[in-house]
Each structure stands twice: as C-alpha cells, then as structure tokens.
C-alpha cells in the first residue's frame, strides 16, 4: 500500500487543481471499445510510427487488471485488483496530461473473486456518462464515483445474489445509457442482467438470462426509432433490450459466442455467431434480418472491428482477416505476432493491435495494394515488455494501454 504514499503526494496538488474542471467532450473514450462500442476513435489520429519515444508517460498500478482505461475530459480512470485473493478492488483517477494519480478508492469484494489465472477481479471495464465513473469487478461489486472521487453508490451484486458468479471469472463490461447502468451478470447458475439507476444504483429492472457462462459485453445501438437499444449477447444469440425498462424488443436466437462481443456499426450488428453473422434490426420488433454470414471470419477472443466498408476479425494466434462489409467476402489475411486476447482499436483508419506479450502492432490497411502482400500494412511496432491482455483505449491523440502493473499513454503530448 506504499504505492499511494509515493504516487499521491503533496506534489499532486498542482495536477489536482488543473484537473478539477473535468469537462467531457466528444473525444472521450467512455467505455470498453470507445464511444460507440466499436473500437473506433472518431475524429482522432495517432502516430503510426511508434517507438519508445512515443510514450508520453507511464504510471505504476497498485494491482492487476485487464479492464480498459476510460478517458473523460482530462482524467483517465483505471480499475485494478490486489491481495492474495484479489479481493481489494481499486478505482484510480489519473491526470491525462502527466499521469499523476489524482485519487484512488478501494473497496473490499463482497462477492467471489476466484478467476482463471490469466485474468483478475478487475477484468470488466468501467464506463462513464460524463457525470460519474461506474466500475464493476468480477466479484460483481459495482460502484459509482463522481469525478472528484466521491462515492455515489455501491452495489454488491454478488452478495445480493450469491449464486451469481463464475469460477473462471466474470468479464462483461458496463454500459450506461438513458440513465441506466447495464450490468450483464450472466453465468451457469444465477444468471441475470440488471439495469441499475445511474443516480442511486437501485434496480430499475432485473432480467433472467440464459444459465450459461458468458464473458461478452453489452453494446448500445440506436433502435429503428432512434432510441437507444442495448444488445445483450449470450450462447443463445443476441437480444435487444430497452435500457429504461429491460423490455426485450427483439431476439436473434441462432446462438453466439460467449467470448468475443458483438460490434455495432452503421446500424448493423456484427455478431460472433457461426463465424461472423451480420444482422440488421427491423422496425417491426421481429427478429433482426440476416444480411450475411461468413464462417471463415470467426474471431478468437478479440471482438470484430468495422472501419468504413471493411470488417476485421482477429484470431487468438494473430491472423487478422479483412472482409467487405457488403457481403462478408474475405479480401486478405495478415499474420500478426500473437497471441492475442485484446481487441484492436482504430484511429484514422489505422488499427492498433496489442498482443499478450505487450507488442503494439500498428496496421494501416490503406497501404495494402496487393492482397497477396498484406505485410506492407504493418507500419511500426512498440514492445512494452509486459503481458497485456486488455483492450487499449484512445483519446487525446494517444493510445492508452494497461498491463497488470502499468498504465502507458502513448502518442502526441502536443495534442493536449
């Protein structure tokens, strides 16, 4: 615990003052896979040539975790877990400009913290609505804090519902929309998704879900009427949920993966189902229409990424496949250095792929003129030298990567 003694010192006072006006803006990265939950940073460009000089700052973390950093205004929020049983749950807030720790809050897990050794209690990513940061952990403890670190509410969902757990760990990230924090707590036993009131944490609704371990994350999309819909993926398929009530609006029942998550782009859902299946919701509340299905585009742990008219999937070994979003026809495949667990993130049409060895591989698909020579797309590599399992984030012209022990900001300091 000496970490806080060195990180949170009187020297942080200046950073605290500078960061005290936290204003959310469009370039924020408020949740897992970014503002639209598709891994794409709109209106942002990052350097394509990365080297050790590209690291703007790094900060030591007090515990393990593979959750993605969340960036809102001039603050970077990260979760971690520590202790012999990973039952210390941490939420940290860093200053975007210099990586100084502004505050840290710790909680004791009230639910089970057992996970596979590759992950930890801090596997699900937090989310923000621009007013508060909401964090959930594998123990199903869920907290809301304001940007000054004041506790707004605490829920012990693993204590409230004691059989809601997974002995390999829970990983579904939060989404927040329409004043509701959606917590997907799906597992082999007491399986549910809850809509928690963003202001109080109280249940707005609680929906029974398939009794099957599920590591996917929800994604918010616009319904055909323009209102938000939360897509919940499970072994059974994908259900569209009205976030304010939990009402099931539509259902796709042809099964789906329980690891990589659905990506939404252009009003379509790219679902890891029987390879990759693209769906288009209909206005009549019936099952979404299938646009195409491609068995050869099956993703690994990484979720699909859509950039313009191209869809990318990445398998665990590092084969990056690119296909046409119109029909799913595969255009090329590129062998990256694997293995991969994280999902690529995109800025300026360029993919930033981080393998489990901590090697950032920058892939610029625009460089490919001959599908037989896709390797020209690899623009640069940066070895961070630590195991990285979590998906990075992009904001303020920078890539944010975290390992079990470190958080890096990689990019242009001048973008501040």
């Amino acid at each position, binding site marked *: 615990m000496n970490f806080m*003694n060195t990180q949170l010192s009187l020297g942080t006072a200046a950073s605290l003052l500078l960061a005290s006006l936290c204003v959310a803006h469009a370039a924020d990265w408020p949740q897992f896979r970014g503002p639209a939950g598709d891994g794409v940073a709109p209106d942002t460009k990052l350097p394509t040539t990365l080297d050790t000089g590209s690291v703007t700052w790094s900060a030591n973390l007090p515990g393990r975790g593979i959750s993605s950093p969340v960036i809102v205004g001039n603050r970077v929020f990260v979760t971690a877990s520590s202790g012999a049983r990973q039952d210390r749950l941490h939420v940290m807030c860093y200053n975007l400009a210099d990586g100084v720790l502004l505050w840290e809050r710790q*909680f004791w897990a009230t639910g089970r913290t057992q996970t596979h050794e590759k992950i930890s209690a801090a596997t699900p990513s937090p989310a923000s609505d621009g007013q508060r940061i909401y964090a959930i952990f594998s123990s199903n403890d869920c907290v809301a804090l304001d940007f000054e670190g*004041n506790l707004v509410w*605490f829920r*012990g969902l693993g*204590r409230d519902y004691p059989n809601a757990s997974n002995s390999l760990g829970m990983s579904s990230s939060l989404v927040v929309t329409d004043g509701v924090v959606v917590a997907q707590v799906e597992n*082999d036993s007491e399986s549910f998704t809850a809509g928690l009131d963003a202001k109080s944490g109280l249940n707005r609704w609680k929906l029974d879900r398939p009794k099957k371990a599920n590591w996917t994350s929800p994604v918010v999309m616009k319904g055909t009427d323009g209102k938000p819909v939360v897509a919940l993926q499970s072994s059974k398929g994908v259900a569209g949920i009205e976030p304010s009530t939990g009402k099931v609006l539509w259902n796709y029942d042809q099964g789906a993966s329980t690891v990589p998550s659905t990506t939404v782009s252009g009003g379509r859902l790219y679902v890891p189902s029987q390879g990759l299946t693209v769906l288009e919701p209909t206005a009549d509340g019936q099952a979404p229409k299938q646009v195409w299905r491609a068995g050869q585009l099956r993703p690994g742990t990484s979720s699909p990424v859509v950039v313009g008219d191209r869809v990318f999937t990445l398998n665990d070994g590092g084969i990056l496949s690119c296909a046409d979003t119109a029909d799913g026809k595969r255009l090329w495949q590129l062998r990256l250095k694997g293995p991969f667990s994280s999902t690529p993130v995109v800025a300026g049409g360029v993919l930033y792929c981080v393998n489990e060895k901590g090697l950032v591989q920058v892939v610029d698909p625009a460089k490919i003129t001959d599908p037989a020579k896709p390797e020209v797309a690899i623009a640069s590599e940066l070895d961070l030298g630590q195991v990285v399992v979590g998906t990075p984030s992009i904001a303020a012209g920078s890539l944010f990567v975290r390992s079990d022990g470190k958080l890096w900001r990689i990019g242009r300091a001048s973008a501040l």
Partner: protein
Amino acid sequence: MNASRLFALGLILPAVGLGLLAAPLPTALEAAVRELRAVTVEGQGNVAASGAWKAVAGAPLSSLPSLLEAMDGANDYALNWLRSAVETVEQRGRLAGGTVPVDGLEAFLRETRHHPRARRLAYELIQRAEPQRAARMLPGFVNDPANELRREAVDHVVTAGDAVVATDVPGAIAKYREALGHSREADQIDVIAKKLTDLKEKVDLPKVFGWVMKWKLIGPFDNTGGAGFATAYPPETQVALDAVLDGKGAQVRWVDFESKDDYGMIDFNKPFSELKEVAGYAYAEFWSEKDQPVEIRLGCQNGWKVWVNGKYLFGRDEYHRNREVDQYRMPVGLKAGKNVILVKCCQNEQKEDWTKSWDFQLRVTDAQGTPVVSAR
C-alpha cells in the same frame, strides 16, 4: 439463496451499535455514519448514504480512529462505504498538509476486538504515515486474528528463513515450520510446504489443512440433462447407511471411502468409475467437543449441495469451470457431539478430458481458517 438467508447463515456480521466508540464523533458526523451503516441488500439505503458519505469524507484527520471503530459490526456493504470515506479523509487530509493521528491508529490497531478489516486499514494508514513504525509492529501480527495482517507477518518469517537457508538449513527449517504453524491461507501454506519439502522435510498436508478424509459414498443417481441437481434423492431426506436404493440403472449402497490425497480429494470416480450425468452423495460424521461456530470450506467443480445436521447450507450448479481450496465458505453452528455432513456431488454430460473430475474436498475450520478436527 436470497440475501435474507445469507444473513441467517452469518455471512454478514450482526449489527452492533455505535456506543463503543472510544472518542465520540460530533453528533452530525455520527448521524452520517449511521446512514452509512444502514445500507443493506439491493442498494437499500444508498440514496441517504450518498449524501452522508460526503459529510463523513469531510471529517478531520483526527476522526480516523473513531471512523475505523464505526466499522465494528458493520455489514459488508457498509464497510465499503466507510472504508472509502476513511481513505478519502486520509488522502485529502494529507494533501492539505494535515497530520495523521498515528498514535490513535496504533491504539486502535492493537485492540484485536475491532473488525479485522478495520484493523488492517489502520495498519495501512500507519504504513503511509510512518512506514518504520508499521515495520516495527509487523512481526507481532504473526498470530493475529486479522488474516491480512497475519499473512504479511508470516511472510516476514518466511523471508527470515530464506535469508539463512544457504548457510543455516536447520535455522531456515525452524523459521519455515514457525511460518507453517501460523499460516491460514492455502496459497501461502503451499509455498511454505514446498520450501520444507525441498529441504527433505516431511509435511503432513492433510493435517495442516484439516481435510475430512473419511466418508461414506453412494451413487450413481440420475443427473441426465442436469435434472438430478434439483432432484431430492432419498439421502436428502434420510440417511440410512444400510439402505439399498434405486440408483441410475442399478441398485446402490453406501460404501466406505478414505482419501489418500494431500488435498483431501473425495473422488467418486474411484468407487463408481468415470460416469457421466450422474449424482452421488457423501456422508461424514463429525464429532465436536462443544457447541461452536465453524465454517464448512469446500472446493468443487461439479454441481454440489451441502447439508449439516439436515440443514441445507448452499448449492451451486456450475460444472468444470475451476476449483480451488476454500472455494466456498459456509458458516454453520456445530453442536456438541455427533454432527452429520452430507454433500451432493453431480457430474454433467461433458466428454472432454478436463471434465472427468467428479469430486470435492472439504474441511471444517474456524472463521480464520484454523482447522477444526473431528474429536473421533
């Protein structure tokens, strides 16, 4: 199991009043603390607590010992509200150049009647303010009721053994033996045991952990499609050890089983062969010298249910995800004399090699993890 049942099982500490505070808080602050302590299941009390939290987090540094004392008897939800407020008081107070009341924190820490988590937090606050004072105190926690303090003190003893192992093997062994005697957490026990066995020392792991090794088993019963998990076969209503029961495809009888495994594994595959979609029961008599609260600690990656003296404690229908020592902890009261432990263990339909296990491990401990062994 719903939350009210959880309370009944004692998983949540019973509430006590704030009357034991050593240095009374100002009335307004005490009222705010009461709001934090009032939070309970499903977020009840959150709205009031949210406002109260800011008042508590704005308390002066001098209030830290009293705020820690407010954790005594608090439920696990309230502990988190209080913890985050305490740490905020400390962080903001330190940034403002205030003085952490280290003497008061040490006095609080030395009172072992306080909540183990609050005492550990007091230790960490001292560590931040005066690391050398914390370091001086650490060895004294080797037999402490707060497991996090105890664990770190035990590590300190292990480190002392490591420091001399190259030149003084008997001295190192003595340190490792001391550490093993005090350790209460499985992963730490494993590390120490390996150090001893590497030095050719014998470690009786079943005794260290206190596994229940002798059982009577019966099975298989039908668990096709997982339906057997919810089916109450005869042992769930009455155990007759001489009974002949209708099992899955045959009549079944109770058989003796004694584990020879260092980790106390009770393996149904051994007497009944590697079967699928089946359920079995394990029965053990556990003799207690007195009425006492204990924990049943189970490791199992099959569907399972546990009863003690006919009272259902908990169950879980998850298969082949993971298993670890002390995976599930169930508080229960033992009576003086004979107690009966009944475990239901279900196997599912999966055919992969890694889904063969149909077993469990179980021990009886106090709340800290000290083994409680059967008197017979």
